């Protein structure tokens, strides 16, 4: 359990570091790799028509 918890924490720190790379305005090589990784694991989010509003 404790090892599992340690592993969970380590994974969270790694994922946070990867996420922070994807939040860069001018991504470098490693940042772009992080974005590719993220897109690969999450996929593209399709447009949701419920979010659309008619023009007033």
């Amino acid at each position, binding site marked *: 359990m404790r090892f*599992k918890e340690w592993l969970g924490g380590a994974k969270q720190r790694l994922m*946070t570091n990867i996420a922070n790379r994807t939040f860069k305005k001018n991504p470098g090589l490693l940042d772009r790799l992080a974005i590719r990784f993220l897109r690969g694991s999450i996929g593209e989010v399709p447009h949701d028509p419920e*979010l659309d509003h008619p023009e007033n």
Partner: protein
Amino acid sequence: MASAKPTDNKNTYSVCTICDIGCQLRAETEDGKLKRMIAHDNPALARNVCYKGTAAAHIHNHVDRLTRPLKRVGERGEDKWEEISYEQAMDEIAERLKKVVDQYGPESMAVSTSGWNTQTTHSMDRRFMNALGTPNYISGVSLCAGNTAAVNKITYGWFPFADISNSKCIVLFGHNPRKHSWTPIFNMINAARANGAKVIVLDPRVSDQAEVADLHLSLRSGTDAAMCLGWLNVIINEELYDKDFVAEYTVGFDELCERVNDYPLERVAEITGVDAALIAESARMYATAESACIPWTPITDMQISSTSAIRLQSILRALTGNIDIPGGDVFGGFDPNYIPESKLGNHEMLSAEQKAKQLGSDAHPAYTYRAQEMLSEHTERVYGYAYADIVMGCYMANPSATFRAMATEKPYPVKAFFVLGNNALMSYPNQHQILKGMMNQDLIVAHEIFMTPTAMLADYVLPGDVFSERNHISDYWNWKLGLTVSQKAVEPPAEASSTFQFWHDLAHRMGFADLFPWQTIEDMLDHRLSPTGKTFEQFSNENYMYIQPPEYRKYRKTGFATPSGKVELKSSVLGELGFDPLPYYREGPAVSEDYPYYVFTGVREDAFFQTGQRQVKVLRDRMPSPKLFMHPVDAERQGIIDHDWVKLQTETGEVTAKVLVQGSMKQGHIRVPHGWWYPEMRGEAKLAGAFISSDAVLCPDTPEYLDYEQGIPHFKGFPGRIVKLNEPPAGMSEQVLAG
């Protein structure tokens, strides 16, 4: 008025403040106007958007936006105004405030605000108040999240944020995150569920979350504390708790066990109306999960046993060892990269004598200076600074006591009321008393983006800016660790400006210039980011978000920020204040022949946040009229069918609304949406219909309806009755009648 220029449109990310969640969205502009607000381009954030957020352009460019300062020319509440310049307004406000303070003392000024809406105050309101000498700050967070933060601190020194995405078991006490309300939380729950997490929902009705839950406990409204005691009974008696954690990091376990034994499952089943076997099964599911969390819920915030129920949720987290672990409830602390509002507020400056005058702190001290300062030295020991104003909710006056003082001048007069980004008249209990209090003021100043029923009662109304018109960095008010950039996309219209600017300009006129050296929001952001060595411009050019990598079980090094240094199952703070130091369940006012239904109010609808947005056509079209929910059996007994107009009456007031008959409702319960008024009735009905359908008239704030420790009213399950109307109410628009 405007400070920095809007940024390049191609890279403009803004934090939406239409509700309290703070999703970062992308702004598109055209000819200096916000054209539309769209979802994020980062796939991890792209689902965090709802149809309120994408309506931002309809709100920000609305024809009814306030753009010039207004001065009252008619009687108070008559809604007659003249436009004046910003400089004239601020000069006159300062002069009149000085007069009130000279006559009645600094504590005669009260401020009501909502940090969710105003966003960029940077605690300059508290700084101003502390410089002036008034402790009378009230906020909607006293009913929602802020009070939970304060009570959590009493038990273990901080307010944790649930690590939902990584959890294996999520417990929702009445909370119902869905696609267009609390959207990021909804997405986190879905992600966890996809990863095998179990979800337990405790809600009187079959909510959206209950429909897909692993276990749904349809408890009677307002009985959260009893349910938690039932869970503890199972967890303790079946020895499902984390014995090592309890032994090393808690105090009061034996006394807690004794208290819990007063709540055998049969008793809890009787109180809550939930089968004992289901209570036991859910308690076991929670306690034996690899990791589990109990996210904050607005439902437990608003009950007669709220303090106990919030503490019991904290105790459940502690006993099951789910504190500060991945997938549990995680303690953030102050963000090392950003100076917190807790510091900027300068709470040290207010004297003990003035703090003691904080309204309501004598009877209901839990979230006031009186209780929270008992934690100061421990907060400093663990977190490095004495004042942790998490979610802005830890050093507040009690709203009911404040409005009572405004109305009756007891225990002392409150004669100047400043209300910013907050429709106070309809946002607290006992709306009739609030009106009485506001009518008894020498000075009311409102800072708003639209004219509201509250602003109609003001002497001065200043036009506020909106999130696309200002720079900001959100730090979630220290609830979780992370910084989110919000960039100005367009200029505010005419003389609209931020609440930061308001307090700065008022402070300079009141002789506090030295305490307010930052001229612009960007100066303030530079100051707050100084630990990073970067300016706002540098930081926001590099990142649109930064999350502090998490650390877990930090208490092993620091202990907990409580007097004992441990999780206080038996609270030394509450004990010293004269309250029961152990959690308990208290029954709310009973239903009767006259008032046979349990009413629950304060319910959020997807199209709106609190009392806002009713004038925004694209949102109002989705929800044209207020609707109560009733069970089919109750409706049949009352001779009511779908879309009938009714009056819901309690001993203090009545709400007119339509009925939706829903099989998902719990029998004997009536659900009331929050914050309805009718901007289209402005000029025709008193205060634009603020007393027709507003749920704030329903729940009394007399002692038998109030939680002892916080003074929170029992919004979840008080007695009421339904009267069918034969005719629709007069004066309603065609849209309301048809919708």
